[in-house]
């Protein structure tokens, strides 16, 4: 009886267990077999996160690998509105941190959907502040922010990018495909606390780095001198190009007005315009170089041939053209030196329109130079068939033809290098990591093209030197180097009258230095200088001189002209506090606030680079020696060397043991850096230097 009861209970328990197990397994089977897909998708949504790895743009360097543009990672905040429980509170909190109007945020968050940007590319402190709010439904996405650490330096060459890091100008646009890289999406798993794990390694393509031909020091010199000239002449615009005539590489390309690419959207379109390659102007007298080059190349004239310049007036094709000055008989070299329009016209008439046209085309006018920058203009050059009878006269002196500053600089470079026309370029190398990529497309190297004979180029170089020595370009004469160049004062069309304006001109100077082995070609173009005199020789030539002297010294180009001794002005140290405010503007990382402290794009205040105030005390001293040579007799080599180094003298040690003789004698006054020869021990073999 008892045993029967036990059996019954066991049976009930077994039945319950069987039922429970059947129910469990049944449910499991149902979920696995019938609702597998649904729950798999739900789990996937909860556990998986698809992370978009934004591509990192490659850096842009100058020729010395100084970074001019680089990207650093920043955080962008986004929200999943469906996960936000209280959008009003979230909007209020975020508004306080991000300084965005609460209404704007509320509108975004109430919009529904699964994704909405709160703010992109947050500064680190703001990102931390948002993170500290610990709002559910607010997440961060890593992106990259493009920075231009040198601000407006070389802005027109570098270009700029939009918020999605897409290149919109300059090299950034031209090489966007290689600089940008490719983005990638990776899948990571997240646990219940939204911690990531099991994330795959993203094979992100970081984008190639670009090494430019620009030199940031040369670029700065060019921009500084251009800004100073703009401030002095009150001109609205200007351009400076510094080019290596032997390769076509552009060392500096400066435009005014300029802009800060860190805040490119704030700059007017005019400031973002790369005038060096897209602004067309009538070159004026600088174009006489082409006229003379063609004539010399065709052996139609010689530098010493005399032309009658008709007292400054000549009728060509029924149109009377007046010279800027009434000249009589001039040699060809004097025609170029004095920039005689009538003389240039007579030479062009002897050359004839077809050949003249061929040479103009040969120098690259009327077609793009092929520079690896976007937006290049081809210039304006009427086809030969469309020339009117007076065209040859007008074009010979730089009218009725439109050129870009880069076309002009490239043409003059061909004269400087002996007659080869190189394709101007700004990109020297493209690198992916340590690997150097081949240059393709616009950056591919091209063989130079011969446009004039080397003899012709040599003759022109000599004549161009004459322009600087005793012509219209005297203000471009360099201290320490020979140079050649040509001034240009191109009258602009007055929109009111439709005729050439007498006051509105483009003053330019194009030249190179040194004469025999040119290292640089410089073009200076100042648009509408509001000063008098406003000729190229008065406005642009001094800028050429300033830039050339600094750049040649920087490039260690040996001097080929002795520097005449003269008094040296020595300025005493000025109080440091006076300009501390302007230096505060150059705080290292305040990029968003750096809207160009030099006032780029502002016509009212063109060049605000703080000029150094004149020193309160200026003392003129004779540079001839101020260091008294000590008596080295009986001293060791070490003692002599140390004493010389301490005084800034250059010791020349001869012999051994103790010092016995010296030159200059003890007590003599010498300059800093002078050589002091000291004889040790017996009489040296070359005793001539030592008394």
């Amino acid at each position: 009886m008892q045993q029967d009861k036990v059996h019954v209970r066991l049976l009930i328990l077994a039945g319950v267990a069987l039922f429970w197990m059947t129910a469990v397994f049944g449910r499991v089977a149902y979920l696995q077999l019938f609702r597998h897909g649904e729950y798999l998708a739900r789990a996937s949504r909860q556990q998986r996160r698809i992370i978009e790895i934004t591509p990192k743009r490659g850096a842009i360097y100058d020729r010395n690998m100084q970074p001019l543009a680089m990207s650093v990672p920043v955080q962008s905040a986004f929200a999943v509105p469906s996960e936000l429980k209280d959008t009003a509170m979230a909007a209020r909190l975020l508004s306080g941190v991000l300084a965005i109007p609460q209404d704007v945020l509320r509108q975004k968050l109430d919009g529904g959907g699964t994704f909405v940007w709160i703010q992109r590319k947050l500064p680190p402190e703001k990102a931390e502040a948002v993170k500290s709010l610990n709002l559910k439904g607010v997440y961060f996405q890593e992106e990259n922010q493009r920075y231009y650490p040198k601000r407006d330096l070389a802005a027109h060459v570098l270009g700029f990018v939009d918020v999605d890091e897409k290149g919109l100008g300059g090299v950034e646009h031209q090489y966007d495909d290689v600089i940008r890289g490719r983005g990638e999406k990776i899948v990571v798993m997240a646990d219940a606390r939204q911690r990531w794990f099991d994330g795959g390694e993203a094979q992100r393509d970081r984008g190639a780095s670009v090494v430019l031909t620009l030199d940031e020091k040369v670029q700065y010199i060019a921009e500084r001198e251009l800004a100073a000239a703009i401030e002095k002449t009150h001109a609205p615009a200007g351009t400076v190009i510094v080019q290596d005539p032997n390769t076509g590489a552009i060392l500096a390309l400066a435009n005014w007005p300029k802009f800060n690419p860190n805040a490119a959207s704030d700059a007017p379109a005019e400031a973002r315009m790369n005038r060096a390659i897209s602004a067309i102007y009538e070159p004026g007298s600088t174009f006489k170089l082409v006229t003379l080059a063609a004539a010399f190349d065709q052996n139609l004239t010689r530098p010493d041939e005399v032309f009658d310049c008709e007292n400054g007036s000549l009728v060509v094709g029924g149109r009377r053209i007046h010279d800027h000055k009434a000249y009589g008989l001039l040699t060809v070299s004097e025609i170029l030196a004095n920039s005689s329009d009538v003389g240039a016209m007579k030479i062009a008439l002897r050359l004839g329109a077809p050949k003249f046209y061929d040479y103009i085309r040969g120098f690259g006018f009327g077609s793009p130079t092929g520079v690896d920058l976007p937006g290049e203009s081809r210039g304006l050059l009427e086809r030969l068939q469309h020339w009117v009878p007076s065209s040859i006269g007008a074009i010979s002196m730089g009218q009725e033809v439109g050129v870009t500053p880069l076309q002009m600089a490239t043409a003059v470079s061909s004269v400087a290098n002996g007659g080869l026309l190189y394709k101007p370029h700004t990109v020297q190398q493209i690198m992916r990591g340590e690997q150097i990529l081949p240059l393709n497309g616009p950056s591919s190297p091209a063989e130079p093209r011969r446009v004039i004979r080397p003899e012709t180029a040599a003759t022109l170089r000599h004549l161009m030197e004459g322009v600087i020595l005793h012509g219209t370009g005297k203000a471009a004469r360099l201290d320490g180097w020979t140079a050649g160049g040509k001034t240009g004062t191109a009258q602009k069309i007055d929109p009111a009258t439709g005729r050439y304006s007498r006051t509105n001109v483009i003053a330019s100077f194009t030249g190179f230095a040194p004469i025999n082995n040119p290292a640089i070609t410089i073009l200076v173009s100042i648009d509408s200088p509001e000063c008098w005199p406003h000729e190229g020789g008065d406005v642009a030539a001094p800028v050429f001189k300033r830039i050339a002297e600094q750049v040649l010294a920087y490039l260690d180009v040996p001097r080929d002209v002795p520097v005449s001794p003269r008094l040296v002005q020595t300025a005493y140290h000025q109080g440091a506090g006076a300009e501390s405010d302007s230096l505060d503007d150059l705080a290292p990382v305040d990029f968003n606030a750096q809207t160009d402290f030099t006032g780029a794009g502002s016509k009212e205040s063109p060049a605000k680079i703080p000029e150094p105030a004149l020193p309160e005390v200026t003392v003129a001293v004779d540079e001839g020696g101020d260091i008294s040579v000590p008596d080295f007799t009986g001293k060791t080599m070490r003692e002599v060397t140390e004493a010389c180094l301490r005084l800034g003298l250059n010791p020349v040690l001869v012999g051994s043991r103790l010092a016995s003789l010296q030159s200059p004698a003890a007590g003599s006054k010498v300059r800093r850096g002078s050589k002091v020869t000291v004889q040790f021990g017996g009489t040296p073999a070359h005793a001539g230097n030592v008394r």
Partner: protein
Amino acid sequence: MVGKNKPAMVEFHTVKRIDNSRLVRHVEPLKMRNLYKTAGLGAVVAICCMLYIYQHFRCIDLSFQLEELRVRQQQSLGLNGALKLEIATLRDPQRIDLLARHQLGLTEPTAEQVREYSAFDGSEVAAVRYVRPNRAP
């Protein structure tokens, strides 16, 4: 069911000594071997299961650690980039120019003040150049 008139039952306590020492359990070797095999197999399976579970959770744990390290690596790279950016900013020629002119009071050298050296720059080099030949035998 025991009546009152029946005499009481006398119970005797006897001690019965049972010696089981001579009993020998019969062991079948085949069964024992199977038992050991089964137990061993079970242990192996259990160990494999434990190993699998350990590996699984260890893998997840390492994934967390890896992800943390990746984050730290990214942060370090970001910091590195920011520092490079700061260096580039500090090397801005315009900034250096202003510092030189206004804080240090430097001015541009005139043409006469710029000296060219035909050989190596620096008097130290000159000294070494002349001392060495003199020491030669």
